[in-house]
């Protein structure tokens, strides 16, 4: 599903942040991405989400060489990817319900066709009573759960999560991990970038460790 070959990334004329990355992410797989701060985890997630282009090497996503893709094709591919960013990126003028339903709205689906799915998921992540709240009045943990719900609502084929349990207590962290595992079992490939060793120890999965721009894969 995802194939990287000798991929390098640098910002402007700066040093290479990522060097010679070569790996594959098969469909239905689950992996943790870890490494020290500044190792390039977020940059790698952005490469996977197509918001950065590699400086060198080949990135193949869902059978497409990303260097050959136009903006419209990238937008179409992104519909198959869910992403949870550290800063949540919720829209402040929309309620929690509307934020989570946004991918369906962009797909052009009617509100009545997705209402049940969105409400079910919001209740499942513990935001059933915060559906009509605006993000500025949500706590950090609530925002994180809303961002996760938005990323998984459309059952993406690939889910990328950057520190998804960083702002929640261990109980809710375990619960969110269960959500990712359930999603993975239903066919979504999952990549979770995290520093949380305890979280990684809860589930047997492949580990990608980034160190000084290079990637080490532990099966």
């Amino acid at each position, binding site marked *: 599903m995802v194939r990287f070959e000798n991929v390098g990334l640098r910002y402007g004329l700066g040093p290479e942040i990522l060097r010679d990355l070569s790996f594959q992410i098969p469909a239905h797989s689950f992996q943790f991405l870890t490494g020290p701060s500044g190792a390039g985890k977020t940059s790698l997630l952005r490469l996977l*989400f197509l*918001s950065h282009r590699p400086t060198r090497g080949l990135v193949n996503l869902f059978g497409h060489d990303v260097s050959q893709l136009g*903006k*419209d094709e990238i*937008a*179409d591919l*992104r*519909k*198959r*990817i869910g*992403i949870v*960013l550290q800063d949540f*990126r*919720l*829209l402040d*003028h*929309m*309620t929690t*319900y*509307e934020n989570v*339903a*946004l*991918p369906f*709205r*962009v*797909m052009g689906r009617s*509100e*009545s066709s997705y*209402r*049940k*799915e969105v*409400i*079910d*998921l919001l*209740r*499942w992540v513990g935001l*059933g009573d915060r559906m009509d709240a605006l993000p500025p009045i949500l706590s950090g943990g609530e925002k994180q759960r809303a961002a996760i719900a*938005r990323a998984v609502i*459309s*059952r993406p084929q690939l889910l990328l999560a950057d520190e998804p349990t960083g702002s929640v207590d261990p109980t809710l962290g375990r*619960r969110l991990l*269960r*959500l990712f595992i*359930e*999603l993975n079992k*239903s*066919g979504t490939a999952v990549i979770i970038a995290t520093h949380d060793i305890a979280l990684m120890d809860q589930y047997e999965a492949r580990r990608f460790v980034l160190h000084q721009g290079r990637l080490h894969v532990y099966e």
Partner: protein
Amino acid sequence: MSRTDQRGVLVDLGQERPPLPAKARNLSPIVPRASIHGRALVAVVAIMTFLASMTTGAVLLVSASAAEWQSDVASEITIQVRPQSGRDIERDTAAVTEAIRAQAGIVEVKPFTKEESGKLLEPWLGTGLSMDDLPVPRMIIARVQPGTSLDLGALRARVTQVAPSASVDDHRAWIERMRSMTNATVLAGIGILALVIVATIISVSFATRGAMAANRPIVEVLHFVGAGDRYIANHFLRHFLRLGLEGGVIGGGVAMLLFGFSESIAGWFSGTPVGDQFAALLGTFSLRPSGYVVLAVQAVLIGAITAVASRQTLFATLNDVD
């Protein structure tokens, strides 16, 4: 079959679910309606539309008044009979009057008597002056039937035949000067209008750029959830079109109200020296219904120009945001 059906719903980890609310939700717009940049854009468009409407309205007023003067003046000819030694001016005036009456296309002839001619000179010479001591020419005003092309050469020949000292003036030189002045005013108005529209486009482009910068997080999130540029641009375009029309309606509406109000003011002052001067210069200072239609169309047009200018800026900005 939906993807949910294919994969099954997410497993609930053990919570009783209350029944779903049945009512549909009113969704917020993708682009928030009220924002500082939005209000600034409405204000810019409103001011520009107001200026454009005032320019257009003034041009329409001047051209309508000028057309009125021209038609008034063009439907009249003035014959001047000068006193000449050895000739009886009263007889010459009567002969010329008869000669003009006989001309086809003339509907009314009014010769000025000696007393009336004296009255015309009163503002310059004062009262109590004997006209017998002065060689005052006699005026004859003839009204031409509208739409008739008068044979001025034949009329001139006939008039000078009966009174060699008489001259015929069809005000052509004055009309030409008036036409040039009106054309210059209209051209200046169009020039100002063009400048206002260019200024509108530039201001709107900057306002759009500012609004897009303020809405950059929205654009980024929309990109994250898989929205293409076209989808995003359409939503922003709708937003800017609405703001443009809002500004257009406010600016155009205020200008129309002002023209309507000035008409009332002109009515209040009619009969006073100031009002009469104004009426002589600009008629009743009132826009015709077609003038109001022009202003309304212009307001909508400026709203549309706002949307088009925003669209150009939008796509340029979207290329930078990812």
